[in-house]
C-alpha cells in the first residue's frame, strides 16, 4: 500500500513539476497583449474569435471588453485600446477628436448583423414594410387585418430593453419612438422563437442566425424598405449587399493600418476560420 501511495505521489509531483515548467516556459516568451474594447453586441463574437486565435498563437493574448461602441471609440481616441469594436460608423466629431490627438482611425468591416422578422408559419402574411413594423411595435396597429392579414389580434414580441438588438430595432425600425406598453418583452431569443412557434398570431424579431436555425417552425417575413418597394428576404446575400433594410455592419477601428499582432488578429477574423465563426455565432460574413 505504502509503496503504491509513494509512487502515486511521486508521479503527481513530477506531473506538477512538468506543468510548472511548461507554465514558466510559456511565461519566459514574450507575450503580446492585444486589447479589444467596444460594442456589447460584438463581445460574444470577438471573444469567440479571440479564443480560436489564441489556440494557434500562443504568444498573443487578446483581451476583450464591452461597454458599448461609444466607450470603445473613446478608448481608441485616448489610446487605451488597440482595437475598437463598433456596431456603428465613427462620427465626424469623434474622427476630428482622434486626429487632434494624432490618431487616425482606420475602419475594417468584420461582419454584418441582420435582424429577421418572424411569425408563425400558419400566419398568411408574407411581408411587411418598415413603416408597418413601426406601427405594430408602437401600438398603432393591433390587428393583422391592418397589414393585409385576417382580423386577428397581433401579439408583438420583443427582446428585453437590456439587449443591443432592442436598441437597434428601436433606432432603425421604430425611428427612435418608444415601444408600445403592450409589447411583450421576452428574456431570451429562444423564448421569442418558442412563443412564435406556439402562438399563431404573434410576431417577433431575432438575429437572422437564430431565425434560420429555427427552420420551418417559424416563417421569416420579407421586409420592404418603403411602401412601394420590393420585399427582401434576409438572406446572406441581401444583408451583404445592403438590400435588406434591418441590417448593420460591424466594424473594427484601429489607429492607422493594423500592424504586427493586431494585423494577425484582424486577418484571422477576416479569414475563412474567422468568417466561419461569424456564421456560427449568428451573424453574416463579409467575405
Amino acid at each position, binding site marked *: 500500500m505504502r509503496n503504491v501511495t509513494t509512487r502515486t505521489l511521486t508521479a503527481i509531483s513530477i506531473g506538477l513539476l512538468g506543468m510548472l515548467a511548461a507554465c514558466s516556459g510559456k511565461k519566459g516568451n514574450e507575450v503580446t497583449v492585444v486589447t479589444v474594447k467596444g460594442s456589447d453586441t460584438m463581445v460574444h463574437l470577438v471573444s469567440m474569435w479571440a479564443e480560436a486565435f489564441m489556440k494557434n498563437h500562443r504568444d498573443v493574448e487578446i483581451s476583450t471588453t464591452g461597454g458599448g461602441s461609444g466607450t470603445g471609440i473613446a478608448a481608441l481616441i485616448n489610446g487605451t485600446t488597440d482595437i475598437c469594436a463598433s456596431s456603428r460608423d465613427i462620427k465626424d466629431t469623434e474622427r476630428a477628436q482622434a486626429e487632434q490627438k494624432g490618431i487616425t482611425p482606420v475602419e475594417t468591416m468584420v461582419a454584418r448583423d441582420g435582424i429577421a422578422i418572424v411569425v408563425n408559419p400558419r400566419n398568411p402574411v408574407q411581408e411587411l414594410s418598415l413603416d408597418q413594423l413601426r406601427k405594430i411595435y408602437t401600438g398603432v396597429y393591433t390587428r393583422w387585418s391592418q397589414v393585409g392579414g385576417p382580423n386577428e*389580434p397581433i401579439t408583438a414580441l420583443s427582446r428585453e430593453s437590456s439587449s443591443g438588438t432592442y436598441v437597434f430595432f*428601436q433606432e432603425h425600425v421604430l425611428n427612435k419612438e*418608444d415601444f408600445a*406598453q*403592450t409589447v411583450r418583452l*421576452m428574456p431570451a431569443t429562444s423564448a421569442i422563437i418558442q412563443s412564435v412557434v406556439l402562438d399563431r*398570431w404573434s410576431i417577433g424579431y431575432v438575429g437572422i442566425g437564430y431565425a434560420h436555425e429555427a427552420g420551418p417552425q417559424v416563417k421569416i417575413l420579407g421586409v420592404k424598405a418603403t411602401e412601394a418597394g420590393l420585399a427582401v428576404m434576409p438572406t446572406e446575400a441581401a444583408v451583404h449587399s445592403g438590400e435588406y433594410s434591418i441590417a448593420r455592419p460591424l466594424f473594427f477601428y484601429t489607429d492607422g493600418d493594423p500592424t504586427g499582432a493586431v494585423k494577425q488578429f484582424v486577418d484571422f477574423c477576416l479569414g475563412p476560420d474567422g468568417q466561419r465563426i461569424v456564421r456560427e455565432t449568428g451573424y453574416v460574413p463579409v467575405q
Partner: protein
Amino acid sequence: MDKESSGKQDTFPSSDIETNRFVAQEIVMPRPRTKWTERCVEVTLVVAASTSIILVGLIFLFLFREAAPFVQHPGLSSLMGDRWIPVSFQKEQFGIYPLVTGSILVTAIATVVAVPFGVIGAVYLSEVARPAETETLKPFIELLAGIPSVVIGFFGLVVLAPFVKAAFGLETGLNAFTGGLLLGLMAIPTIMSVSEDALRSVPASYKQASLALGGNQIQTIWRITVPAALPGIVAAVMLGMGRVIGETMAVMMVTGNAAQTTFKPFESVRTMTATIAAEMGEVPFGSDHYRALFWVGIILLVATFLLNIVAQRVLKRYSVRQ
C-alpha cells in the same frame, strides 16, 4: 488557557515594563480575565446568531445608499407614474405602478390557486392519510419545493402557457394568469408543510373531546382541528405569498413582461422581480435607470419583510395559545 498564557509569557522580553505587566497578569487578572474570555465567547456567539439580522441591515443600507441619489435628481415623484420606459430615445420614464400591480396581480392569482391545494393537502396528510401514504407523499412535496425555478419556468413556457391558451381560447398563453398558476404550484409545498405542522400541533384532547361528543371525523376536522390551527395556516399562506412575490425566473418566462397597469388576469404583466432581473445586468452603472431599479428592490424588500413579520406575529400568537 493556561498553556496559551504561559506560552505568551515566555516570548516576552524581560524588560521592566513587561515584568510589571507579567506581575499584573499573574496577580490581578485571574478573575477578570475569565470574565473577559467568557464575554469574548459570548459576543462571538451573539454575532454568529445575529448574522442574518446584520445582513438584512446591511442589505437595507446598501439598497438605500444606491437608491438615494434618485431622490435629488429625477425626484421620487417620477416613480409615481404608469409608464415604465427605461430605455428610450424620447424620454426615459420610471413609473413603477405597472410593476407593482403586476406583482400584486400575479401574487393574488398564485395565492388563490395555492391555498386550496396547500391547505386541503395538509389536512389530508395530517388527519386522514395513513402513515404509509404520508411517507410516500411527503418526499414528492419536498421534491417539488426543490425544483429550480428556471426549470419550472421552462415547463411553464412550453407546457402550461399553451395549455392556458387552449383552455381559455386566448391568442397567447403569456399572461398574468399563467404566471400565477405556475407560482401557485411553487407555493404549494411551503403552504402545505407549514399548515401540516400547525394541524399536527393541535392538542389531541380537542379532537378526542369532539369525537366523544358524537362528532364524526369530517366534523372534527373542519369544525375543531382546522379552526384551532387557523393562525398557523394563515401564517403558512403568508409565507407562501412571500415566496411567490419574490420569485423571479419562472415568472419572467411566462408573464410576457409587458409593463402595463392592469388587473385583468389574461393581460401580460411585468413583475418587480422580473424587471430587476432583466434590466440590472446591462444597466449603465450609476444612471437614473440603475437607481430606479434599486427603488424597485426597496419596495420589494419592504413588501416581503412586512409579509414575514405579519406571518411571524400570527405564528407567535398561535404558539402562545398552545
